[in-house]
């Protein structure tokens, strides 16, 4: 009764091709956008933004990117941290070399540079498949982090080896640096997330997405029916790295402000984003949001309950968090291999009838 597809007639091709063809979904989407853009910015303070909203928005972009590669194209990658580092350092170099250009374009360009690097490291995927590829992407992870650590040009020869974001403004409002306000950084990241999600959603419904899914389901069969594996895999690596690069740039410039590469973009980051994708649901844009929200909220919640509520030491709480995350992943894989997105689909099915029996 509450979720209905019936009675929603399309009278034009445009209506049939909408991003959200079902009216209920569309209304929900508009409401979510309204709340996100017009309500949340007035209600948040620094704590909320730094603890929950910024990490959620940024990880959601990364999760969408990785989901395109793993969930839609079936190429497992463990190099996400390395690619995020490329985005961050590209953004840093652009920001310091061309201070007169708007930060917005820097972030986009950083994504583009990451896409090129991603395609480069994606090339072996034509020969290497499955687990071998997963391990091969580790090469990207370790090599890139080492590169940014050892070549002083990347961090502008600073003594500490760190990079820190200079202050940049958008329409006169600072979005990076020390003098940012909570709502500005939030809106800045939100715009990127909405744009990325829209692009990803429409790419995956279109020809590119269908090719990716054909490759994922069986690459030889896809090749035989005329999907060019080179193009399909390279576009998947490119688009995925583009999003991951944007998230890396935002992670550095807007969220952290100063970054030490091994700490911020280490192998654990790769796994974190991979878990978001798995828990959220492989091959689902909504799942990327859900997974990112889940894994951002869980540690905050655990920390508040265990450290704040029960007064346990932080390190014990951190170990317990590891344990719980691991157990959750295993539980998810056993109970629902398709993740939170599948749970949402089941809920919608139920809501169609509920509270009536038929």
């Amino acid at each position, binding site marked *: 009764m509450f979720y209905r597809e019936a009675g929603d007639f399309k009278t034009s091709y445009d209506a049939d091709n909408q991003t959200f063809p079902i009216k209920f979904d569309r209304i929900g989407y508009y409401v979510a956008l309204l709340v996100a853009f017009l309500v949340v910015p007035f209600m948040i303070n620094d704590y909320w933004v730094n603890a929950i909203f910024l990490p959620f928005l940024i990880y959601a972009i990364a999760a969408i990117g990785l989901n395109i590669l793993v969930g839609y194209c079936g190429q*497992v990658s463990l190099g996400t941290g390395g690619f995020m580092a490329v985005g961050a350092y590209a953004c840093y170099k652009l920001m310091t070399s061309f201070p007169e250009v708007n930060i917005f374009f820097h972030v986009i360009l950083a994504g583009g540079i990451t896409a090129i690097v991603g395609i480069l490291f994606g090339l*072996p995927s034509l*020969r*290497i*498949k*499955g*687990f*071998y590829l*997963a*391990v*091969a992407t*580790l*090469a990207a*992870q*370790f*090599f890139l*982090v*080492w590169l940014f*650590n*050892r*070549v002083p040009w990347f961090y502008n020869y600073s003594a500490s080896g760190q990079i820190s974001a200079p202050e940049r403004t958008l329409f006169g409002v600072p979005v990076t640096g020390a003098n940012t306000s909570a709502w500005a950084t939030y809106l800045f990241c939100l715009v990127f997330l909405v744009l990325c999600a829209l692009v990803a959603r429409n790419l995956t419904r279109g020809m590119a997405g269908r090719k990716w899914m054909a490759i994922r389901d*069986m690459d*030889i*069969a896809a090749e*035989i029916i005329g999907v060019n594996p080179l193009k399909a895999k390279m576009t998947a690596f490119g688009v995925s790295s583009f999003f991951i690069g944007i998230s890396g740039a935002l992670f550095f410039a807007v969220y952290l402000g100063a970054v030490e590469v091994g700490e911020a973009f280490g*192998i654990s980051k790769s*796994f974190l984003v*991979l*878990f978001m994708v*798995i828990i959220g649901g492989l091959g689902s844009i909504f799942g990327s949001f859900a997974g990112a929200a889940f894994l951002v909220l869980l540690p905050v919640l655990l920390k508040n309950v265990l450290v704040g509520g*029960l*007064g*346990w*030491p932080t*390190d*014990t709480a951190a*170990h*317990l*968090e*590891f*344990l*719980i*995350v*691991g*157990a*959750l*992943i*295993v539980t998810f*894989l*056993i109970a629902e*291999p398709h993740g939170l997105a599948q749970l949402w689909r089941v809920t919608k099915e139920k809501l169609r009838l509920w509270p009536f029996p038929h």
Partner: protein
Amino acid sequence: MPEQLIFAMEVFLNGLMAGVLYALVALGFVLIYKASGIFNYAQGVMALFAALTLVGIMEGQVPFSHLINAALGTDIHHFGWHVPGFVAILLTMGVMVILAWLVQKVVFRHLVGQEPIILFMATIGLAYFLEGFGDLMWGSEIKTMNVGLPQGMNLAIDEVTYGIFGYGFFIDNLDIVATVIAALLVVALVIFAQYTKQGRAMRAVADDHQAALSVGISLNFIWVMVWSVAGFVALVAGIMWGTKSGVQFSLSLIALKALPVLMLGGFTSIPGAIVGGLIIGVGEKLFEFAIGPMVGGATENWFAYVLALIFLVFRPQGLFGEKIIERV
């Protein structure tokens, strides 16, 4: 003989020894992959967990003492006894068998028939769980392990090489012991796989699950056994690494190095794991020695992966892996 060449020889020997340690971890991967098709990412964490448990038992630590102290407000840490190394190793082995049984019972029994990638993700989840569990059980501070293995420079080799080259090679006693133990372990595994009933059953399962099932081999038993053997290999690797560099979190990262070793050698080959380990060990030490100073050092972080990546582009199944045949 020029000095550089002598240094290079020393680096080469040390690389061989390091390679043996990588191979030890890689062995555990191969065993599980062959028998159940599971790519066990948690092998490294299993080594860490085994080492933590061994130290914990030897020192007589109270398991979960941090958790108990936090929850009940008590202040307990040790039982106040010390267990001799040999007994502790046996007890740890018992823990690893229980772990193997639990892993099979709780996790992988429910995942039979799933895609390999799902199984792989499950082992990553398992790795996180074990890491948190191990730290929660025994505490996360760096521990020293001392089960009576010799350590320090081997004087005999130092003297002999000094006599020949006029320069004494530095070779750690521990590395020599590790090499001997690794060789023994491989021989034992081969004998086990070739000449015992269980070993034969294990090979049958590796060949074909269904055929093995139909001649009356219990898959469940074989898988628990394989995980136990892998746990044993993890324990040996944990002892070696733990004695060498202390029992700490980075132990599970060192195990990541076993992945390129596997890729070089092929996932399904025990000799491949050994040869791959030696190639990676020697390769990264020589590369660091020759090229490292020019590009800023610490090339060991990535050399193994890049080497494996380049190698795989030319031979996707690794050195000794089974040829990949693809059908629609």
